[in-house]
């Protein structure tokens, strides 16, 4: 067991991938000399050199496209986009190229690219740096969308993502980089299944990524009130682990979904729809959601706090569902 931070785990995973496979390289804005804007790649330029740790211009569409081309040509690129807010410049490359080429070429070309990006708010960086857009990407067939919410997943998801012959997007909530945990290293996890992080009998809390910690804290508070909450960490937003979702709802018959994304047309809406479609007769209460308020995430600290899901908000939603 090793005590390490979420940031260390991501860096460790990149280092091991580069050590074990010469086709792997990292590129993105400030990943080299600056060490990454979240210091994830600090020290890697010195270790692996400028050929494999490549600083790029401020051109998300350009370098993401380059990564897709490199993947088609046989390399295993890790593309880092500073935040998901900027990834919209590369959305054309991700959706029209990465996600489609295997299908449009009749299987002749795979695109084994991994695109990492930071997501989420809570750091007073303003609306253009604070949104959670992973739910949008989960809409797109042809890609896999991962949301590591634990240190072990942060360290363990990269290797299977690189092994996947199709594009994989990894959303790292920026508030998690300083989280530390005692983990088995090297971390070994799958990128197919959701995980029950806490077992319970009264209500299921379904969440992922940056909201996992808040949700577990809310479950602790609920336990003190005699409410036994189960916490399901989705881990994979596409394809959704529908069996795990339906199984937890079948156990507890009540469900609150916690998602830092906006709720309209969101991944939380999709989860609710699947529960209604396939788990309707399990339900002993209406479903509920705790999402970000439907505003551009504010800069002012108190407004930003009010806009994002909170532990108190989750606890209150659970009480309402249970009628307590």
């Amino acid at each position, binding site marked *: 067991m090793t005590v390490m931070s979420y940031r260390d785990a991501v860096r460790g995973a990149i280092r091991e991938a580069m050590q074990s496979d010469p086709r792997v390289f990292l590129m993105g804005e400030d990943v080299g000399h600056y060490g990454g804007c979240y210091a994830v790649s600090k020290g890697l330029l010195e270790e692996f050199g400028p050929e494999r740790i490549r600083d790029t211009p401020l051109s998300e569409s350009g370098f993401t496209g380059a990564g897709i081309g490199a993947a088609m040509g046989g390399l295993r690129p890790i593309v880092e986009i500073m935040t998901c807010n900027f990834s919209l410049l590369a959305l054309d490359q991700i959706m029209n190229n990465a996600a489609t080429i295997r299908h449009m070429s009749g299987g002749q070309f795979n695109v084994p690219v991994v695109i990492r990006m930071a997501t989420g708010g809570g750091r007073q960086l303003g609306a253009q740096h604070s949104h959670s857009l992973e739910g949008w990407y989960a809409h797109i067939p042809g890609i896999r969308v991962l949301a590591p919410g634990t240190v072990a997943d942060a360290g363990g998801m990269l290797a299977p993502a690189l092994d996947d012959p199709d594009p994989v997007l990894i959303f790292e909530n920026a508030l998690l980089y300083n989280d530390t945990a005692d983990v088995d290293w090297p971390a070994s996890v799958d990128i197919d299944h959701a995980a029950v992080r806490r077992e319970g009998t009264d209500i299921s809390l379904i969440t992922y990524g940056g909201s996992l910690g808040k949700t577990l804290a809310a479950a602790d508070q609920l336990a003190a009130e005699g409410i036994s909450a189960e916490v399901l960490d989705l881990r994979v937003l596409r394809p959704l682990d529908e069996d795990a979702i339906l199984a937890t709802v*079948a156990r507890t018959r009540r469900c609150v979904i916690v998602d830092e994304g906006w709720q309209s047309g969101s991944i939380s809406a999709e989860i609710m729809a699947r529960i209604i479609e396939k788990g309707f007769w*399990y339900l002993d209460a209406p479903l509920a959601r705790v999402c970000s308020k439907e505003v551009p995430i504010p800069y002012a600290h108190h407004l930003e706090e009010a806009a994002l899901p909170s532990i108190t908000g989750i606890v209150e939603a659970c009480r309402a569902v249970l009628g307590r």
Partner: protein
Amino acid sequence: MPSLGSDMEAGILVEWMKQQGEKVSRGDIIAVVETDKGAIEVEVFEDGTLAELLVQPGEKVPVGTPLARITGPKDTASTERRHASAPAPTPAVPMPTVSSVQGAEAAIQPPTVTTLAEGSRATPAARLLASERGIDLALVKGTGPDGSIVRRDIEEAAPRAATVPDLEPMRRAIAAAMSRAKRDIPHYYLGHSFDVSQAVQWLDAYNAAHPPQERLLLGALTLKAVALALKDFPEFNGFYGPDGFVPASAIHIGTAIAMRGGGLAAPAIHNTDTLTLAELMERLRDLIGRVRKGGFRSSEISDPTITVSSLGDRGVDMLLPIIYPPQVAIIGFGSVAPRAWAIEDAVAVRPVLTATLAADHRASDGHRGALLLRRIGGLLDTPEDL
């Protein structure tokens, strides 16, 4: 699923009397359904072929659900069209095949019927369990948010439901209908006693001339007298609905018959006024026999336009009956007993019968009710004309 009473919401198909593909014609008994009132035979109202059975024996479905599809004798196109526009039957919602959910949970079926009052709430899980355990949601008190019925409420209701005797559905049906009558219908009551020596003498003579199986009971005469009298008193023969009183176009007298094991039913003798006394007696015998076995037909139970209740053979002088909604009148006959009867200035012993009328004051007034009772008495004075 036909409505076999104003308070019926659902019925269980017990068995099909015809097979798929068999030809059926109007009046055939095609199925037996179980309701709160007992097992009832369902007639078909069309000629054709039983093309498709849509409900399987044992299924409980709401009133109005198509039970089968009948294709007409002529064009199949019209029946296809009818089928396409008919309201969809209770959808067979497929359940998820969740591999990680073990045991009975994985095999659960959606409930096919609920009996919850409008405005009340029950969760899907509560409805499902209630359906599995045969618990009427309307009788469960909800303890969930906003008074909603949750699964725990059904779990706790279960032991009570298990101790209820078999008679309960019938008792409940009677309770519901009679409570509704007493709550909604402003009853007025009239009573009239009359000398029935003419009828009794005529009956004795008639019966002496006929073999036992053809003999008449006084009940046949009173039924016929009521039917004939009603022709001139349409405000007592019909239904009171949302739009007020609507007189019926025919006279179908419901006859209250006690059932074995308790409870009662009042199925109709159709077009009572057009039957001869012999025909009426035959229908009455047939009906009593079938009701005691619990096997009356759908049209018999849903069609009565007025009810007659005779408790004479129980030895009571008179009864004050309760109207069976949405009917607007019920006539009761007590026993025929020898009484001291004043005739002009002398007293004689005569067979006397007391008839009572309970009528809905929204549809008629006491003046007309009194005339109706007098007319019945008058008709019994000339039994040869009945």
